[in-house]
C-alpha cells in the first residue's frame, strides 16, 4: 500500500504536499508514548498518534517512517508540519479515530509491526 492509497482509505488530508505519496508503507502502528515508539518503530511505518509536537517528527524521521497519521480531526502544529516536510515525512490528518484508522488499514492487508 502506498501513502496515497492509505490517505484515501482513511479519508485523510495531506498536510505535507511536498512529500512523496508514492512511498510504500511497510506496516502500521499506534501509540502516544514517544519512548515506546522509539523502542518499537520501524522503517516505512505508518504511525497513528494524537501527539502533534516537533518530537513526533524527530522520532518518525529517526525511524525512517513513511507517514504520521493524526486521528479525530486533530491538527498538527505548523512548526511540526514544516519540520516534517523538511525531513520528508508525510503527515496525514484523518477525521477517523485511531481505532478505525487501524481497522481500515488492517482490513486492506497492511500488517502490524514486523517483529
Amino acid at each position, binding site marked *: 500500500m502506498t501513502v496515497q492509497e492509505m490517505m484515501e482509505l482513511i479519508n485523510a488530508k495531506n498536510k505535507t504536499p511536498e512529500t512523496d505519496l508514492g512511498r510504500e508503507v511497510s506496516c502500521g502502528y499506534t501509540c*502516544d*508514548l*514517544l*519512548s*515506546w515508539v*522509539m*523502542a518499537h518503530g520501524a*522503517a516505512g511505518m505508518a504511525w497513528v*498518534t494524537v*501527539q502533534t*509536537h*516537533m*518530537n*513526533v517528527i*524527530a*522520532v518518525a*524521521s*529517526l*525511524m*525512517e517512517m513513511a507517514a504520521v497519521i493524526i486521528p479525530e480531526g486533530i491538527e498538527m502544529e505548523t*512548526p511540526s508540519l514544516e519540520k516534517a516536510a523538511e*525531513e520528508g515525512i508525510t503527515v496525514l490528518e484523518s477525521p477517523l479515530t485511531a481505532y478505525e484508522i487501524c481497522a481500515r488499514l488492517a482490513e486492506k492487508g497492511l500488517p502490524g509491526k514486523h517483529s
Partner: protein
Amino acid sequence: MAVILEKTFPVEAGAFTTAGEASTTIKRTLKQLGVNAEVLRRVSVACYEVELNLVIHSLGGTLKLLVDPEKVTLISEDVGPGIPDIAKAMTEGFSTASDEARTLGFGAGMGLPNMKRNASEFDIQSEVGIGTKITMSFALQS
C-alpha cells in the same frame, strides 16, 4: 584505533522543541559515512534516547560522537543533578520525568533500558551533585 570523526553537540536542559536535532545530525553524518542500516537504526534510537534524557533530566550537557574503523561511540556528559540509584533508573517502567515531559509522551521509563538494548557496549557513571556520564559503543561489523 584511529578516530575518523569526532564531533560534540551541546544539549540544553528543557529544550523540548529542539530535542532530536543532535540525533538527526548524527544520523545524517553516519549515513554519509556509509554505516549500514541496522547499525544506523540502533545508533539513532540510543542517541535520541540519550539526547532526550539530557533535555528531560539534566541541567545541560554535551553529546559527543566518535567514529573509528571498528565502531561508533556516543558519550553523553552532563553537569548534574546526578542519579541517586542507577539500578532503579535502569529498570524498565521507572521514571522521574516531569509532568511536562510526560504530556509530550516521554517518561515511559524506557530510555536507559532502550539504550542498553541497542548498544554493543553500555556504561553509566553517575554522582549526585556532579553529573552523569553515559558511554555507548556500536560495533560496525557484527
